[in-house]
């Protein structure tokens, strides 16, 4: 019984760890640029494919399986540079437009990236050779848990702390918060908003691609994984509150664990419950648990 419960909960927390990374990317972009980036799910898918390719190339070149996480994480982070391209090449044109157009532009990205993934990696599910259990499994209170899951949970926690440190303890973080609060004032004080936007969007993208890369040993990459994950990440940020990092953290835990429990107890309910929670939050408390901006 306890073993079962631990399994369900840890499965949920593992999913939450991944969700947090994508949702954090969504939040930092929304917080500063006021753009709800539908494409962050597509960045997640892109990270997954590139990560899988990097790991396969690594093991194919004779790299030791125990070190696979290094090329995986590196590839996940590096592919985040597409963020600069997207920001400078597309988003930079629409900052003064109605947010509807910004939303539609990110939807255009969703469409394009889905097919770019299909063009590059084909339509069949793509995965790494069995590396998921390369680090073995441990016994936690009777439950058998892959060590890799614990590594990802730990890494996600470390990234959460790192983002917290970045936002509250560094100059760049102070500039981000100032820009989120009052763009004109920040600009008047000499902040080059173009560079801030490029950096922030790249950070958001890299969080999404890293999340995608880290999930890949546990599951196969599929071209629809992006548009599926974005609605979960969307649930996370609504529950947590748009633009809030703490909200992304708590929201990811709520959605991840809730979903795992629902799947185990009553599979029909799965995401149905999540959307009901989302609607309840939007109706009763639109700013979410931690959001600051009232509607």
């Amino acid at each position, binding site marked *: 019984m306890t073993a079962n419960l631990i399994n369900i909960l840890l499965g949920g927390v593992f999913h939450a760890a991944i969700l947090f990374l994508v949702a954090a990317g969504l939040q930092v972009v929304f917080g500063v640029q006021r753009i*709800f980036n*539908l494409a962050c799910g597509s960045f997640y898918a892109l990270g997954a494919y590139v990560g899988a390719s990097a790991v396969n190339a690594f093991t194919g070149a004779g790299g030791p399986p125990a070190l696979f996480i290094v090329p995986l994480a590196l590839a996940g982070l590096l592919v985040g540079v597409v963020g600069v391209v997207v920001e400078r090449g*597309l988003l930079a*044109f*629409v900052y003064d*437009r*109605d*947010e*509807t*157009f910004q*939303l*539609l*532009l990110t*939807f*255009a*990205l*969703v*469409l*394009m*990236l*889905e*097919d*770019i993934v*299909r*063009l590059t990696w084909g339509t069949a599910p793509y995965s790494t050779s069995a590396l998921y259990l390369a680090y073995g499994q441990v016994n936690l209170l009777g439950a058998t848990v892959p060590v890799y899951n614990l590594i990802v949970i730990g890494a996600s926690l470390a990234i959460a702390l790192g983002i917290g440190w970045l936002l509250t303890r560094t100059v760049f973080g102070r500039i981000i918060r100032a820009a989120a609060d009052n763009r004109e004032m920040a600009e008047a004080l000499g902040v080059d908003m173009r560079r801030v936007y490029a950096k922030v969007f790249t950070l958001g993208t890299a969080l999404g691609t890293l999340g995608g890369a880290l999930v890949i040993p546990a599951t196969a990459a599929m071209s629809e994984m992006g*548009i599926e994950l974005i*609605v979960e990440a*969307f*649930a996370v940020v*609504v529950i947590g509150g*748009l633009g809030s990092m703490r909200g992304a953290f708590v929201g990811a835990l709520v959605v991840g664990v809730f979903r795992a429990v629902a799947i185990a107890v009553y*599979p*029909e*309910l*799965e*995401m*149905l419950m999540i*959307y*009901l929670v*989302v*609607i309840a939050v*939007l*109706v009763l408390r*639109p700013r979410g648990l931690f959001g600051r901006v009232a*509607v």
Partner: protein
Amino acid sequence: MRRGPVALGLAAVTILALPLVAPVYHVLLMLPFMAYAVILLGLNLLFGYTGLVSFGHALFMGIGAYTGAVLTTHLGVRSLELILLASAVLGALVAAPVGALCVRYVKIYFGMLTLAFGMLFYTFLLKFYRLTGGDEGIRVLRPSLLGFDLAAVSKTDYLAGAYYYYSVAVLVLAALLMWRIVHSPFGLCLRTVRDNPAKAEALGISIVRSRWYAFVISAVYAAVGGALLGPPIGNVDPTLAYWTHSGNIVFMTLLGGFASFFGPVLGAFVFIFLQDTVMSVVPYWRLIFGAILAFLVIFAPGGLMGLFAGRRPGEVSRA
């Protein structure tokens, strides 16, 4: 604007004569176009005239399509008139409470709330297997038209003949009705609410109620259009209600031009036929359409109608 009526007349003649001259394949492609045209006429009441962008309208298309499927397959109702009526009523019944909650918000929050409702319905369709057939969906049996049971006619003759003209009639009626709505005092109210909510309020217009009416009307249009989508495919499945489908119809509206009455109809036409052309060459229509959408958003937010009319983007984009 003398060009308007001429273009409209030409379009009408072409549409009526098409089954007589065009290859069956293209005639059949007109069926989803007309269904989407009905849906978009409704969506644009919300998007273009009221300024609310819904990312969950697939919910109402799904309601219409599934109503047709359940009625023909499970309940033995074959009359398309009854199906359209039931779709409209169900669409309105669902849209009334959903809309009442959604229209309290605008912009991104409205979009998010509609998205959440859409995905709620999608999950329902996917998970409640016994009622909805899960991911396989439900078959749509051939409906009878105006009381004529056309079971003896071959499938192509039915779709490219009677069903085609039936769809034309529904589209024309829907367009006439929508024309009346947007040119009525109520339509004027909606535009005032969009452009200057404070002034609308000062004039005694209830902002929330106007938006709510617009939401319910557009949902009814989406449900009726959704019901028309079913019979040509012969099967409905949950992807109809998926959020990307909601995104696609917003895309169609923008493609044609949301600032004009017939813009969305043109958008549906170009979308359907261009998608078919692209897919006959390469399967990657999303890549090309994504690029088109990005181009539209950045350079031509007025859509095709905006280009024809030669308006500058500044005149159609709302602050």
